[in-house]
């Protein structure tokens, strides 16, 4: 086990991601943020809070997307009980920032984009991840905003802990047996 980011480092990284988002978008009139269930929303909750603070509490549309029904491995693994999808606004013609905690094979993001397109046709979709596991992609998906890049092998796993849910802020790399 190895710590990739401790609590202080994680906070700095999150601040940077939030600032980059504001820098690229300035106004959030035409930009919406969508967190991917279940673990991505812990990151997007934080980012949304920070973005609001940085940009002076402007109105920001924020939704949550569950991709369970869009997975490409439904038949080959244990059935997952879905989480809530809540997108209480139209994404038609908007810039959508998808947020997830760890980018690994790219399959989750593929599913998320399919799910997203069933809600409308966004003008542009961007991807923000906290940890980018480079060199492990199975689909051509790359992040627009990445908090931390790490080279890993398949038997390893990146776990992100959040204070709200797990009682601590930390990102670790573990070797699966």
């Amino acid at each position, binding site marked *: 086990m190895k710590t990739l980011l401790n609590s202080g480092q994680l906070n700095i990284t999150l601040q940077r991601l939030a600032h980059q988002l504001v820098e690229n978008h300035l106004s959030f009139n035409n930009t919406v943020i969508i967190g991917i269930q279940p673990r991505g929303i812990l990151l997007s909750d934080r980012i949304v809070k920070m973005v609001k603070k940085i940009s002076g509490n402007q109105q920001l549309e924020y939704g949550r997307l569950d991709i369970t029904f869009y997975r490409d491995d*439904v038949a*080959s693994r244990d059935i997952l009980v879905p989480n809530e999808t809540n997108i209480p606004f139209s994404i038609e013609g908007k810039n959508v920032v998808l947020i997830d905690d760890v980018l690994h094979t790219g399959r989750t993001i593929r599913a998320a984009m399919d799910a997203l397109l069933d809600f409308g046709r966004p003008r542009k979709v961007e991807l923000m991840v906290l940890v980018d596991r480079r060199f492990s992609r199975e689909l051509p998906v790359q992040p627009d905003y990445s908090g931390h890049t790490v080279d890993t092998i398949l038997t390893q796993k990146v776990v992100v802990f959040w204070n709200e849910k797990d009682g601590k802020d930390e990102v670790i790399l573990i070797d699966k047996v």
Partner: protein
Amino acid sequence: MTLSVKHLLGIKELNLQDIEQIFQTADNFKKVLQRPIKKVPTLRDTTVANIFFENSTRTRLSFELAEKRLGADVVNFAASNSSVSKGETLIDTVNNILAMKVDMVVMRHSASGAPWFLAQHIDASIINAGDGINEHPTQALLDAFSMRERIGELKGKRITIIGDIMHSRVALSNIYCLAKLGAEVTVTGPPTLIPRHIASLGVKVEYNVKKALEWCDVANVLRIQLERQHKPLFSTLREYALYYGVNKQMLDSIKKKIVIMHPGPINRGVEINSDVADSNQSIILDQVENGVAIRMAVIYLLSGKREME
């Protein structure tokens, strides 16, 4: 997280956790059904056969829509225009369908227990869409789901089931389901249509419909199943309507506003009057709407077990 069963044969075999899991999943599918694009690609590699040895409008349509909205391929089979009329056995019929690479079977059959029999002989998951006078699990699930939507958690709530309890698979599945969810159940109707030992399932029996209605929060009114009654069990439909039919006058004489349900098809003017069926106390069309979401949830939750065997 998966269901504790491989097939959905009856509510009797489910546990509370299974039911909660189906409801939670159905909540999500209900949201999908309210979107402009009412479809997800979840089961695009699954083929489902709907095998109906008995007539059905609502259930077959509801299953077919549920399957299509999950992205599954669907084949429909009605016994009336098939080789069953040439004398083919149930197992042969189903095995021939499965040989064409079908993954899941939804079956309605007039013989009670037919899906249990089939489950012993085939590998595919089976969903019981009604067997004789035994069970109709998806109807009970959508009934309880609709009740919960209207009056909240069912624990401690009072449900009256009115009418042809004897020949109703909806009644039996409802009784099992409501008991597992902690609701109290009373059955009411003419004594000839209430099975003698029904109280052993933990339900109360009340022969006075008005009293039973005054007692309850929700009344589930059942259809008189004349096609299953081989000897006369009440004198005329008019007499039945007079003593056991639910009408507006009766509901208005009760102090509280109870919720009215009916699994359909309705015999208007017999077990329920139009002024009740079409009133704002009735959630009959909500039941139909929820039926698709519940069936999507059941099919989805049963679909994952295939490669685990």
